[in-house]
């Protein structure tokens, strides 16, 4: 037995949430050739099918690209700090991909170890995530290689399965999810099924082994050679979470703000002295891969990658995680053969 919802009821539900003043986001076409997760003003903007995944991620709902940490007012020698009004609006994402949602249980670790990040937690609590199990994948998808699946439930409060007949099976996974769909679904004997997902192509153990023993490998140079050094991969990654803290304001007052930052920028680690521990883009590319597949797993036990493939899709030179891992795997294999 399952619970199903028709496309029509789902749309009504979305409109209802919007009219209740909730912020509802989902995949939508902002231009003929640009598909992004955006806040919706009406259910008919929501697109669930006919594409692999949006070019951005839902990370932004919980870890905004720019966020005020607090404000300050200056008057003569007097300074007053004040908290920025915390967001109180409930947020709902509809039609997120499981590879978007799966990032949050992983990100919970870094935002909550020792010092708890109140901004992340607040938005995390306010957000309900309804994912849609993937039926299709493209050549950049590799969720199955990082131990996820097209219907991975991590981070989802509810998951939809397209039944192909204008109906969706709804699986409520948390209380938040249940509350959202309470009374809106009907019992049915139809059970949804996700697509098979991409064939796993990366042996993570092999990759980890390479990373553990090849910090100083000349291969990093060739692996990063075509990288142009932008932040498109990091900013469209569901799990990249590095940030910068800057002041925005003038002599009278302003705010301290945190903005997304990316390890691929040379300024990221530049010391005041002018020394830069990662002055080379090979060092920066290494940091990105190490952080995801060695440092984070060693520290928190989770891989910092959901295999969504956004980094490669958005990369101006089609680099990103998957091609690098595949190359590492190939190098690792060749080297093993050679040493034998």
């Amino acid at each position, binding site marked *: 037995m399952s619970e199903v919802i028709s496309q029509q009821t789902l749309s009504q539900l979305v409109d209802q949430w919007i009219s209740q003043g909730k912020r509802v986001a989902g995949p939508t076409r902002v231009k003929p050739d640009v598909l992004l997760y955006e806040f919706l003003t009406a259910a008919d903007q929501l697109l669930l099918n006919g594409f692999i995944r949006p070019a951005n991620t839902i990370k932004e709902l919980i870890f905004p690209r*720019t966020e*005020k940490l607090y404000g300050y007012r200056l008057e003569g020698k007097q300074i007053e700090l004040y908290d920025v009004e915390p967001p109180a609006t409930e947020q709902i994402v509809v039609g997120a991909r499981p590879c978007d949602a799966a990032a949050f249980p992983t990100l919970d670790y870094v935002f909550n170890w020792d010092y708890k990040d109140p901004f992340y937690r607040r938005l995390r609590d306010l957000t309900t995530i309804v994912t849609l199990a993937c039926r299709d994948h493209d050549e950049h998808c590799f969720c199955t290689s990082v131990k996820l699946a097209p219907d991975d439930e991590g981070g989802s409060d509810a998951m939809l399965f397209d039944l192909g007949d204008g109906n969706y099976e709804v699986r409520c996974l948390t209380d938040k999810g249940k509350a959202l769909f309470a009374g809106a679904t009907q019992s049915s004997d139809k059970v949804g099924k996700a697509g098979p997902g991409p064939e796993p192509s990366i042996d993570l153990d092999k990759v980890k082994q390479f990373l553990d023993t090849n910090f100083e490998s000349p291969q990093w140079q060739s692996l990063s050679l075509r990288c142009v050094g932008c932040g498109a991969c990091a900013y469209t990654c569901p799990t990249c979470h590095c940030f910068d803290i800057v002041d*925005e304001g*003038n002599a009278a007052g302003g*705010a301290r703000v945190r903005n997304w930052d990316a390890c691929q920028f040379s300024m990221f680690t530049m010391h005041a002295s002018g020394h830069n521990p990662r002055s080379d883009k090979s060092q920066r590319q290494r940091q990105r891969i190490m952080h995801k597949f060695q440092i984070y797993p060693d520290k928190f036990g989770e891989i910092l990658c959901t295999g969504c493939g956004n980094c490669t899709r958005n990369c101006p030179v089609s680099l990103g995680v998957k091609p690098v891992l595949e190359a590492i795997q190939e190098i690792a294999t060749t080297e093993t053969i050679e040493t034998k």
Partner: protein
Amino acid sequence: MSDNNEFEPKIIAYVCNWCTYLGADLAGTNRLEYPTNVRIIRLPCTGRIDFNLIVKAFEMGADTVLVSGCHPGDCHYTSGNYHARRRWMLFRGLLDTMGIDMERIHFTWISAAEGAKFQKVITEITEKTKQLGPYEAYRKVCKVS
């Protein structure tokens, strides 16, 4: 509308040290009154007037920006104003495409002897800006979300 409520525009004037600034000075010594809406920022030469400064002025709440320097041929540094002129020509095209109100950006040549012209220009663009009203559109851009 009472005088108190009348819109008083903020006008930023980037002027060169050698001509327009002295022109403004002359207006002062000759007691030629001009509106107090203008805030004069002195730079060495119009060639130094980085277009970022124009954007910055709008960011900081200017309703109109004036850039003014030496007449062609009079540049203290020989050619600063010629270079500036070229850049403005290109810059105007860009701002126009971005939908920035071109009636809020003015360029003039005012020499050290033209105190009266300075007075006239400032009076005119102040009046003009009063008609246009506050530059709400750019303030909307700069309202940090």
